[in-house]
């Protein structure tokens, strides 16, 4: 807990959950506790939202093996997905492979997983990364795991629409990020200093609305309980305990 009455993770989960309003089906990849929290929060507030979470037993209603998530996305049955990156650049390219030479990288990351595919096929991809530093948000990624933008003739029903970090929320359209709001405790100038790529921003950027009481109640109750089943360590760290 910081001096605010909520954690950074709680704020990010709220911001990400708000982006899911009105959707039918959101899917969350493996090892993604923050997106899972956001999806479950959105569902707690809007029960018609179907939530698929890889790695969960309860929230995985698939019966066709490892390929089903990808086929399902290509069928247009998944409205939103979350992706992150070891590096993310101003064209919304993401790098999950490595820094430096491909054959002998300075730093090697796990790999691209489904990003190169889902980034093209899921209509609303929400990028997220809690750490907001110039190390992550670079002018140009060293390796494009998945491309942010495509030529007009490329079949691409999906792509990046939002970026949520520990400091701010951005929108992405027409090949460019635009600062939507800065989280309480920071401002546009600080965000710009922490970001290695150029982005648009209005003269005056609003502050991200703090979690509403009903959001926090759901997060610390239902959502925390559900997330604990999949990510116990994260749930303990990220959420304030519910009030007794």
């Amino acid at each position: 807990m910081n001096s605010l009455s909520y954690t950074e993770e709680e704020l990010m989960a709220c911001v990400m959950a708000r982006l899911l309003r009105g959707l039918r089906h959101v899917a969350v990849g493996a090892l993604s506790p923050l997106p899972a929290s956001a999806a479950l929060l959105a569902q707690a507030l809007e029960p018609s939202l179907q939530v698929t979470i890889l790695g969960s037993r309860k929230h995985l209603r698939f019966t066709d093996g490892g390929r089903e998530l990808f086929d399902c996305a290509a069928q247009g049955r998944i409205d939103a997905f979350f992706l992150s990156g070891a590096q993310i650049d101003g064209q919304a390219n993401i790098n999950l492979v490595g820094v430096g030479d491909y054959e002998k990288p300075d730093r090697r990351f796990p790999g691209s997983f489904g990003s190169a595919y889902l980034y093209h096929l899921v209509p609303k991809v929400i990028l997220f990364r809690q750490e907001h530093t110039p190390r992550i948000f670079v002018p140009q990624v060293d390796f494009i795991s998945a491309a942010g933008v495509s030529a007009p003739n490329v079949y691409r029903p999906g792509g990046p629409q939002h970026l949520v970090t520990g400091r701010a929320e951005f929108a992405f359209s027409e090949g460019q990020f635009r600062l939507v709001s800065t989280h309480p405790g920071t401002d546009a100038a600080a965000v710009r200093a922490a970001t290695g790529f150029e982005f648009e921003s209005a003269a005056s950027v609003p502050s991200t609305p703090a979690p509403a009481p009903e959001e926090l109640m759901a997060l610390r109750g239902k959502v925390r309980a559900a997330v604990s089943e999949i990510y116990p360590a994260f749930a303990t760290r990220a959420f304030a305990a519910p009030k007794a």
Partner: protein
Amino acid sequence: MSQLVPDLTTLLAPLSDGMSLAIPPDYSGVALAATRALLKRGVRDLHLIAVPQAGLQADLLIGAGCVKLLEAAGINLGEHGLAPRFTAAMQAGELRMRDATCPAIHAGLQAAEKGIPFMPLRGILGSDLLRVRPDWRVIDNPYGENDPIVLIPAIRPDVALFHARMADREGNVWVGIRRELLLMAHAAQTTLVTVEEIYEGSLLDDPALAAGTIPALYVTRVCEVPGGMRPLGFENEPSDEAQLARYASAARSREGFNGLLREWLA
């Protein structure tokens, strides 16, 4: 066609040095006891194919120097972070890698399952994966106009190796909803399976179980190895997090890895 064998040495006899070996992700059914047996035997020059990602099993094989070529959409230890021997081998330039994306590996296996040379796949365009995967071709979609589409060549593993809940004495193997294991068995030349238990009767005679069963036609050898996935989890049984954390920490150095490997293979 398939046969129940009494020990891991017999199970693994069809897997020779230099072969391609397909393995499932950590959340599916990993034959880790069989992997330890392979490490003891000292298998070499594997072309390891993660379907579509892998963790501890791949890191062990890489760390022990068994892998000459790795094809995967991702390698990590799940919540325990980076796979240390994979990371070290890559950063030392010691491992040939074919980076992939999950659906491309599924599609390649499906192409092998269907006996077709390739499968088209949407997405991927604009990714540097196309740069490092010259075997992934881009053609103009014959059913479109100026519509580039990626082709993924068939992946036909010499061997698929995994762990499952149960097999019957005919060699049928029950995998339930873990149908990536069925796909692997269809696509591979040889399929080797460890199981928790033997089912008495035929899995295919029970309509409910049949729906989650790989027929013996696709299964080369089966061996009963209760707990054959440990320390990884399986179905409702959780992973041994303490052991995995120990591995993640020890394997950061070659010495730590070697020490733990000696202990695990003892």
